[in-house]
């Protein structure tokens, strides 16, 4: 208890460097996930020490995105603190919609945050959001099934062709185990989160240096044919309706032999109370193909202060506390080390408690360090982002392409039709936005 109090105190000292003197009532908009629920629970420590209070608006990710975009674009000022992702932070920061967060002081230890993560949340050299947790993607696999099939994975990153051969060997639907489960549900944050890095691995890119869409290029055709064939041959039935949650449930229930998805799911898969394969799962990097660039995605949930907030000092004080080293330790001590926010700080991975509680920690760290949003494609591109393109138009384009890909997976159209439709849509949107003539 004494140690816990010391941690809280240390966190408050950090946040105190940017705290205002008057008690403020802050409104925070956030997503609904287990890390944020812990933050909501522990925030009473910060409230007690600073005298400020927090009002929580917890919303589903897509609802939150729409709600916060409306407010921030109109300078509505409904929120003092918002939760945004690695896609929004650089775009909104460059638009002048967010306060820069470079002034938390030395005690905050900016250098402890992974450079990849810091860069992903910055624009024009200024940090516009501070990371709460970060993730990449890697391959979960059933080591018991692999052992039974005589498959041994080396340290070398396998190719997607090798991955497919392995999947074929472990595919056993008669016994309720499908070779692979991958995202099929349409959406730029759903199926395209898997397809984007897959296309990168096949040497593809969304746009060339002049912003011309490249969705009918050979790399896209090869990648999408591979994806559709893989899922038709070795995926579970109805895969086009499966998103992250559905696949996570299938894998945890022992129905999938392999799954390439978010590193943040590891905590759940390795929790024996929630997963029936906790002691039978191992992990390795996401596969490569013609290149190993951009094969694992990069995503971070981060906290930011809108330019329209009138309580900037108090808001920054909370951000400094909730994303500090001391907060990570507080979560580890009070909620268990496996629940500590992953992927943001070097100190988390230097902590022996965390490393022993989370067997996946080192692979997660390597995946996040390997993900480079500024250099994620084989050929040069004018954008940043691994599984997304950091331009405002991408949300619409990504969702449309996601729908076309899902339709191809559901056999409602061919891969070529899906890509031609996507190309036409992307060209229209990019022309409308003035990127191309």
């Amino acid at each position, binding site marked *: 208890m004494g140690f816990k109090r010391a941690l809280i105190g240390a966190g408050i000292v950090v946040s105190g460097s940017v705290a205002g003197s008057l008690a403020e009532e802050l409104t925070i908009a956030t997503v609904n*996930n287990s890390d944020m*629920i812990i933050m*909501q629970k522990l925030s009473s420590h910060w409230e007690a020490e600073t005298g400020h209070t927090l009002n929580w608006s917890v919303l*589903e*990710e897509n609802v939150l995105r729409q709600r916060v975009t*409306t407010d921030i674009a109109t300078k509505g000022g409904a929120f003092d603190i918002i939760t945004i992702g690695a896609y929004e932070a650089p775009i909104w920061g460059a638009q002048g919609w967010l306060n820069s967060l470079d002034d938390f002081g030395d005690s905050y230890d900016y250098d402890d945050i992974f450079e990849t993560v810091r860069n992903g949340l910055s624009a024009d050299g200024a940090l516009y959001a501070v990371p709460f947790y970060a993730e990449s993607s890697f391959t979960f696999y059933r080591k018991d099934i692999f052992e039974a099939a005589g498959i041994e994975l080396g340290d070398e990153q396998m190719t997607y062709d090798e991955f497919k051969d392995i999947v074929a060997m472990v595919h056993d639907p008669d016994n309720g185990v499908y070779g692979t489960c991958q995202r099929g549900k349409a959406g730029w944050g759903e199926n395209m989160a898997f397809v984007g890095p897959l296309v990168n691995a096949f040497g593809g890119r969304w746009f060339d240096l002049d912003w011309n869409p490249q969705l009918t290029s050979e790399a896209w055709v090869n990648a999408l044919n591979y994806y559709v064939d893989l899922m038709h041959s070795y995926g579970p039935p109805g895969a086009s309706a499966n998103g992250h*949650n559905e696949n996570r449930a299938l894998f945890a229930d022992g129905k999938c032999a392999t799954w390439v998805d978010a590193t943040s799911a590891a905590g759940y898969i390795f929790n024996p109370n929630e997963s029936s394969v906790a002691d039978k799962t191992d992990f390795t990097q996401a596969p490569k193909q013609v290149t190993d660039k951009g094969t694992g995605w990069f995503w971070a949930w981060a906290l930011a202060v809108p330019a329209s907030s009138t309580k900037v000092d108090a808001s920054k004080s909370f951000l400094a506390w909730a994303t500090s080293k001391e907060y990570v330790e507080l979560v580890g001590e009070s909620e268990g080390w496996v629940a500590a926010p992953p992927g943001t700080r070097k100190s988390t991975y230097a902590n022996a408690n965390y490393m022993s509680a989370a067997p996946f920690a080192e692979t997660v760290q390597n995946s996040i360090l390997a993900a480079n949003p500024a250099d994620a494609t084989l050929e040069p591109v004018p954008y940043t982002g691994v599984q997304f393109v950091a331009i405002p138009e991408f949300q619409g384009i990504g969702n449309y392409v996601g729908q076309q890909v899902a339709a191809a997976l559901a056999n409602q159209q061919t891969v070529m039709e899906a890509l031609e439709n996507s190309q036409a849509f992307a060209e229209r949107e990019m022309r409308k936005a003035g990127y191309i003539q």
Partner: protein
Amino acid sequence: MAREVSKRRKAITTAAAGCVGFLMFFPILWIAILSLKSEGDAIRGPLEILSSNWTLESYGAVQERSNYLKHFTNSVAISFGSTFLGMLVAIPAAWAMAFVPGRRTKDVLMWMLSTKMLPPVGVLIPLYLIFRDTGLLDTRTGLVLVMMLINLPIMVWMLYTYFKEVPGEILEAARMDGATLRKELFYVLTPMALPGMASTVLLVIILAWNEAFWTLNLTAVKAAPLTAFIASYSSPEGLFYAKLSAASIVAIAPILLLGWISQKQLVRGLTFGAVK
């Protein structure tokens, strides 16, 4: 003379109606079942779900994490407030259109209905800016006004239809007996159109209670009703099916209860004037 219905035919019709009723109720039943399971069990196959242990833990978690009473109070204030305000406008409007129609009455009615055809997102930004500038963002007053305005066409149309069923001669007789407009409305028209008015009120309360676009977009914390309460348990990343189901059940329970208690009135009102 009423047509004779055989027992067999009656049994088939009853069974078919029962099946349709069960199909319509099944989603709510399934949500109720999921709400009584652990998160781990809620994602299993249907048979495994039914045979797994029953628990109230999701209700406990929802109660612990959210302030249900605050959301409930907001929902009551917004739905009842907007309906009351709407009726104050809709009754005189429908009376005028039903009993003193002008040349453009039909056009006005159609125009009112056409506003319901506009996609709400089309007016989101202008309305948001108006709310921002008038300080109505995240206030019950703002939501009451919006709900009243979006449901007004339905209220006027329904009341207009009910009022048209009331013989004009009765109102004329009341006027000849010296009734003022207020007395005519309160003591003659209202008792005769009461079933219709009651069903209008009930339907509009239900619509306002369930409305999710405006209530999510124009509120943050203070005025957030039960729709925001439900939305806070939805997530594309993480398992919240049981908690989401529990939140849905406690959110729809009051309106379900209201509908159940008043179903006779509702059906009577909705079929009012259907048999000529």
